[in-house]
């Protein structure tokens, strides 16, 4: 996956593998450095999947806490970030699934499509809401809005593919579904995004 | 001494149950050992008994060591204080360095060993500018002490906290910045 941990090229920066070993020995300061190194990427992932800054913040934290607890079992046979990313994805996936069970079918694909009214805003407000409101006219924000209106399954497929650059097989493993389902989800997610952003492309900002 | 009183009053329930016969010899030995221990304590070592507490001396719940530390990245910026950490504060500066990055050089500006009074407030004043107030809230399990702690900067209280201190597990308090570095507190409960 393209999201594999970057090897620390700066000689002053400790390598992931060293920080992981120190963390496994109980060094919380080393783990703190790993948190600092990857928090922006993990937070971006949870944010893209949840589209709520407060929840994404909590889930990113949860991911790091789970990683800390699971560290004794991490065999260093994969890059730390790949392993961490998987934990973060599972935490987020569980959260979405619980929300779906508790919810009212809000994320039902068909209904979501009908709810995708031009100008509608389903992305919840968060820490920087006033600032974001100002930027909302920009293409990036329109895309964010469109992503927010996808069903969680479609959103995950898109995020894993377009942002994290995972292969179909990796996505299938992560989402616990078949390759065919991955392809269908990617196809329909893109169709929906095309429809939602049609206006944007016809009348670019 | 608080420790003695705590031992006397703390209850360790002794459950009632039948004892395995094979452990009978162990019982007898332990009883003998305990008895000798008590006899030794009470008869042969009378000087070790705590002297009666004078009426004027207030009761205490333990002792704390408090220090004000200056942390900086540049050894040349240290104030030149000659205070040394007590021997039981092993590698204090190394441990401070692990918490208060990026500071690499530390010095003790002032220090204070203080009885923690049971009924009155106790002041830990390693400097006239920054000091601590402690109110004991009694012993905590496992040799700890419950206390209410306030950090004062002259006549301004910076923080109030409820804490449980254990000997050898100090509190490091990150205080205000000063000159090129930062002022820190260290507070440790002395072993009984």
């Amino acid at each position, binding site marked *: 996956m393209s999201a594999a941990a970057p090897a620390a090229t700066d000689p002053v920066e400790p390598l992931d593998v060293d920080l992981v070993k120190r963390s496994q020995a109980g*060094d*919380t300061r080393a*783990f*703190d450095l790993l948190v*600092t190194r990857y928090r922006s990427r993990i937070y*971006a992932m949870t944010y*893209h999947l949840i589209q709520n800054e407060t929840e994404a913040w909590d889930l990113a934290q949860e991911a790091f806490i789970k990683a*800390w607890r699971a560290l004794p079992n991490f065999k260093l046979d994969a890059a730390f970030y790949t392993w961490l990313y998987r934990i973060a994805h599972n935490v987020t996936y569980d959260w979405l699934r619980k929300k779906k069970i508790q919810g009212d079918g809000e994320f039902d694909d068909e209904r979501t499509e009908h709810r995708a009214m031009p100008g509608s805003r389903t992305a919840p407000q968060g820490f920087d809401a006033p600032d974001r409101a100002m930027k909302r006219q920009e293409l*990036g924000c329109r*895309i*964010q809005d469109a992503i927010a209106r996808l069903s969680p399954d479609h959103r995950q497929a898109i995020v894993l593919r377009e942002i994290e650059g995972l292969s179909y097989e990796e996505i299938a493993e992560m989402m616990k579904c078949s390759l065919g389902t991955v392809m269908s989800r*990617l*196809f329909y997610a*893109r169709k929906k*995004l095309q429809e939602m952003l049609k206006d944007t492309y016809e009348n670019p900002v | 001494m608080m420790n003695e009183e705590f*031992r006397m009053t*703390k209850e*360790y329930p*002794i*459950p009632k149950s039948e004892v395995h016969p094979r452990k009978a010899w*162990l019982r007898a030995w332990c*009883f003998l050992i305990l*008895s000798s221990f*008590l006899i030794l304590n009470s008869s042969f070592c009378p000087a070790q008994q705590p002297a009666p507490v004078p009426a004027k001396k207030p009761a205490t719940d333990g002792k704390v060591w408090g220090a004000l530390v200056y942390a900086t990245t540049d050894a040349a910026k240290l104030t030149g204080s000659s*205070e040394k950490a007590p021997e039981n504060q092993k590698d204090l500066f190394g*441990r401070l360095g692990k*918490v208060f990055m990026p500071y690499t050089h530390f010095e003790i*500006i*002032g*220090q*204070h060993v*203080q*009885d923690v009074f049971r009924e009155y407030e*106790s*002041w830990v*004043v*390693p*400097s006239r500018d920054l000091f601590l*107030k402690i109110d004991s809230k009694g012993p905590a*399990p*496992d*040799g*700890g002490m419950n206390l209410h702690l306030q*950090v004062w*900067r002259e*006549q301004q209280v910076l*923080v109030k*906290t409820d*804490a*449980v201190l*254990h*000997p*050898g*597990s*100090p*509190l*490091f308090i990150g205080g*205000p910045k*000063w000159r090129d570095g930062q002022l820190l507190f260290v507070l440790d409960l002395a072993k*009984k």
Partner: protein
Amino acid sequence: MKTPSDENHDLIRWLDGEMTADERRTFEATLQNDPELAAEAESMRQLSESLKTHLPAEMPVPHADFFNSQIQVRIAQMDLDEAREREKAAASTASWFSWLRMPWLAGAAAAAAAFAIAGLVWTQNSSSGTSTIASTYTPNPAVHAQVFHSSDAQATVLMLDGLEPVPAEKKIVGFRVHRAESDAELATTTLFDENGAVLAVVAMNAKGQPTLLQ
């Protein structure tokens, strides 16, 4: 014969570079003969580009320092909880002390033994206790207190952020207090150095603030 689903899959596999070279050649030949499919493919390719451009792979975490410190606090809490569980488990396996339960060791002997064991348990545990901070309150709203345990430093840390710096020109006067005497009636504490000389007297003013008299 290909189903619509297969065609859709071909389209995205082409888009995502998941085709073999042969499949790719075949599909691109199809695109040349099917303007509608070609338009669809181009549109999806553009969308894909936009997504990659506008969805950041990294986003700054709001309140990043707090994010880290909270993780440290939670880890410290978990460590404490686990230590307590271990102590509980250890206590339950320490039942060989149960010989003390015997009826013949009653009265004063039992009390004395309990006292001795209490002392033993005390000594064993006093070295394993970890200091904790249960609550903090900073009267100045600009000041934030963060608590975490550093196992590296074997210390509990209380960070006070947002404090006014002490002016650089101010000289911080350190004391070496050897002992203190408290006068309950006057509510004062007198601090002595190792030679018995008075360093300062802490007294409370009418507002309940400490004043250092020298």
